[in-house]
């Protein structure tokens, strides 16, 4: 921590002189990773300099007067002027001129930030409590992380499924609220490959501080390869690898509410969920229990007829239909956010939780020997046992 302090002192000393540390980080500002960041930082430092001048003057006068004119006699007979119109008009006009300049620079900068260039790379962003979904034009969908090209304008087209959120990427100096019921946009051109932080900046409840995502910026060629891989990622996976895929890539979006080690959360823990569902232990807020429902009707929930899968699938896509007693109707629907194969993957993950997670809840990677080569298709015939009921087709 002491080295960090030293770093900061050094950064401050440099930053105020207009110099920068590696990556453009200063005492005030984080690393610069977008085309607009240096412009914003320049404006910020410009305002800083004006503030330093004014604050320095105010501080010196306050302290100086307090010392120079400290009380010497009980009674003070002062005959100096009680007002001076020319002086007062001066210190009205001068700040006015300064803020007009500041306003103009801020306005032009903002207009630039708010005007999306044509043919930007469009990513559809959806915020919901408490995770992010990013959808690429080629159909690839990423959760809580997004892969983006370098040196090309990127536009986020954003909306929310529930409450207000805000996309904030400090390294790019961009932010915009995500509002239900309307589209909002955000654009930037990343200039450096690397990993950057995206966070939710509009308070959205219990998981607000967990609503984070990573932005991966790749040079164009690498990006093209990666985005093609992402589009096919789970389609090409052999079925036995799907559970690992779900645990690694999909579960982080569930993790803000559902634990895998039995700890309480906003939603029921996944630990033992399969067994509870088989036994029909769930009690719902409408008074029904799952065991009742299992015996009713045409066996939609009957474990012998794939009812467990039916229940879990329904809970992911229509979470408001049956709400477990003791929990709020908080879960957003993942219909449209997850493909059928991803839902299958999640159900597989829940069924054999111990295979994919350590007891403390951390991810257990797939053993090396069974790791499929990237893009290896054709192993999909291998069906897992117990999948008797079959996952329902939409």
């Amino acid at each position, binding site marked *: 921590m002491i080295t960090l302090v030293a770093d900061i002192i050094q950064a401050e000393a440099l930053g105020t002189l207009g110099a920068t540390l590696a990556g453009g980080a200063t005492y005030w500002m984080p690393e610069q990773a977008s085309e607009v960041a240096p412009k914003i930082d320049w404006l910020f430092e410009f305002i800083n300099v004006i503030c330093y001048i004014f604050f320095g003057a105010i501080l010196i006068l306050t302290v100086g007067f307090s010392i120079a004119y400290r009380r010497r006699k009980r009674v003070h007979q002062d005959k100096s002027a009680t007002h001076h119109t020319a002086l007062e008009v001066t210190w009205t006009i001068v700040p006015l001129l300064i803020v007009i300049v500041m306003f103009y620079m801020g306005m032009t*900068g903002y207009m630039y930030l708010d005007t999306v260039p044509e043919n930007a790379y469009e990513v559809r962003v959806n915020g919901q409590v408490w995770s992010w979904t990013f959808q690429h034009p080629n159909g690839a969908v990423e959760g809580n992380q997004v892969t983006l090209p370098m040196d090309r304008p990127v536009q986020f087209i954003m909306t929310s499924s529930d409450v207000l959120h805000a996309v904030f990427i400090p390294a790019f100096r961009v*932010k915009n609220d995500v509002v239900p019921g309307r589209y909002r946009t955000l654009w930037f051109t990343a200039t450096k490959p690397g990993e950057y*932080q995206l966070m939710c900046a509009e308070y959205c409840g219990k998981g607000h501080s967990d609503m984070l995502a990573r932005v991966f910026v790749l040079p164009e060629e690498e990006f093209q390869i990666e985005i093609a891989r992402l589009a096919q990622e789970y389609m090409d996976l052999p079925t036995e690898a799907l559970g690992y895929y779900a645990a690694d890539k999909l579960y982080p979006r569930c993790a803000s509410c559902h634990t895998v080690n039995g700890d309480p959360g906003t939603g029921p823990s996944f630990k033992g969920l399969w067994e509870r569902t088989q036994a029909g232990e769930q009690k719902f807020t409408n008074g029904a229990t799952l065991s009742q429902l299992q015996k009713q009707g045409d066996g939609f929930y009957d474990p012998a007829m794939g009812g467990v899968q039916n229940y879990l699938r329904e809970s992911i896509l229509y979470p408001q239909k049956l709400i477990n007693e003791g929990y709020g109707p908080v879960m957003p629907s993942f219909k449209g956010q997850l493909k059928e194969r991803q839902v299958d993957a999640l159900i597989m993950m829940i069924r054999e939780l111990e295979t994919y997670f350590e007891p403390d809840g951390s991810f257990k990677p797939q053993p090396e020997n069974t790791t499929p080569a990237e893009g290896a298709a054709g192993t999909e015939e291998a069906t897992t046992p117990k999948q008797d009921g079959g996952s329902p087709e939409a």
Partner: protein
Amino acid sequence: MTTIPVPPSQPVTPELARDNYLTYTRGIWSWLFTLDHKRIGVMYLCGVLSMFFVGGIFALLVRTQLLTPEGAVFNDNANYNRAFTLHGAIMVFLVIIPSVPAALGNFVLPIMLGAKDVAFPRLNLFSFWLWMAGAVFFILVLVNVDGGLDTGWTFYTPYSTTDGMAFGGVLWAVIGVFILGFSSIFTGMNFIVTIHRLRPPGMTWFRMPLFLWALYATALIQVLATPVLGITVALLFMERLFGMGFFNPALGGDPVLYQHFFWFYSHPAVYIMILPAMGIISELISVHSHKHIFGYRFIAFSSIAIAVFGFLVWGHHMFTSGQSQLINVIFSAITFSVSIPSAIKVFNWLATLYRGSISLNTPMLYALGFIVIFAIGGLTGLHLGTLATDIHLHDTYFVVAHFHYVMMGSALIAMIGGMHHWWPKMTGRMYNENWGRFGFALVFIGFNVTFFTQFALGSQGMPRRYATYNGMVLTDLYHLYHVISTIGSYILALGFFVTAGYLLHSIFAGKRAPDNPWGGRSLEWQCTSPPPHDNFKEAPTVGDCYDYSVLEWDESQQGYKWREDIERPGNPHVSGKDGHA
């Protein structure tokens, strides 16, 4: 609340023992149902300070939680959310808004004006009771009725109106806010009518102390802005309870409309907090440097200008919320215009210090501290008013630091300074000056350590209202800043405990206060300490309230008194000196 016993054996003046507002009548009911503005002011002060204590506890919980990236206090983020929400809501609605106008204003305004009471004493008592009722609702929320309140003090929709998202305590809280709003409206009405109709002969508008100008501007905002808050929270209530759909996109409503409604009140509310604080500073600076305030009219009109501009800038809270480009640009421009009258005040205060006789006693230290802190708070407002930089800084700790510098470092520090200034008048006792200076030093240092750090924390990207900050790219950096900030908050808390300690001690064991310990010239320093029940037997006649040449030191009283060779006000024949203003 008990009356403070004054031993009849040693009255400072013959009048004191017979008639002062503290001993005029006795018993708790004589306080709770009093119509005396001074007692109502003192009761407000007690209420506000106890709520400040509660809000402060929550502030310390919030700061302590952020000592570690994983959260050092609360296992459940929801509890952290409750804590910061209650901190904000209590501090804004129950502490800062009523602190200066309702507590100090009630006590000082009629005496300064030369009136015997406010225009509507019953309404005044009623608004105090409304404040109490509002506080009860917040206490209900505090004990987690319906799960408590976790929406943030802004109650943003659709989070606050969605069942299953925000806890049901939001319903109770908005009832409380509605009631407190009316308390504030009635206080404002009372002050406006008092200043219009109860000025004694000779008290022209431009002879009024600047504190009264500030209270007048504040009262205008209270009367004109608070009803909109009332209807906003009423709509929120209906929306949550009956699904009215005003702010719900699923029913054709608009969540951003709520923000417009809310900030239409809540931005002017910022000026309800800061304007009277500026008024106090104008008094303190002038009295404690024994020098005529510089540029009286500029200061007076800048208060009115701030009140007027304050109504036109609410959109700067919503630069990233989904307003059109044009509206953002317009709001940014008007926002800058509000910085000008604030700058005028600061320069005028500095000019007042010039060639003064500056006494570095506790109230003056708070006033000087105010100038420094308000300069930082005001100047960082420039970063936020500038559109391009605000996009990056919006909803980060930079904003948190900025409004703490303005609301707490300025408004509350001025309130505490004013409390020290009028403490001898209110209680009839002097506090210990050295302890006072020590307390100020702790508060000033603690405050700056706590909140200056947060500027950098915010510009480095730490968003506000985060219960934890682990697993981020810059977690280590944020951790360091949070630790420094938390340490600062402990120093600040210690400063407040020291202050509370010596002030309480002074009530029971402080030296008797002279009528005019500082050499103030406005009318409250011409009645006894504490003032008599009726303030003035006859409406006094008034001169220039910043002309200190009429006072001289009285060794026997250890205070100031009128020069023998100049006639006192209260006498219809005013001395010729007081003619100009």
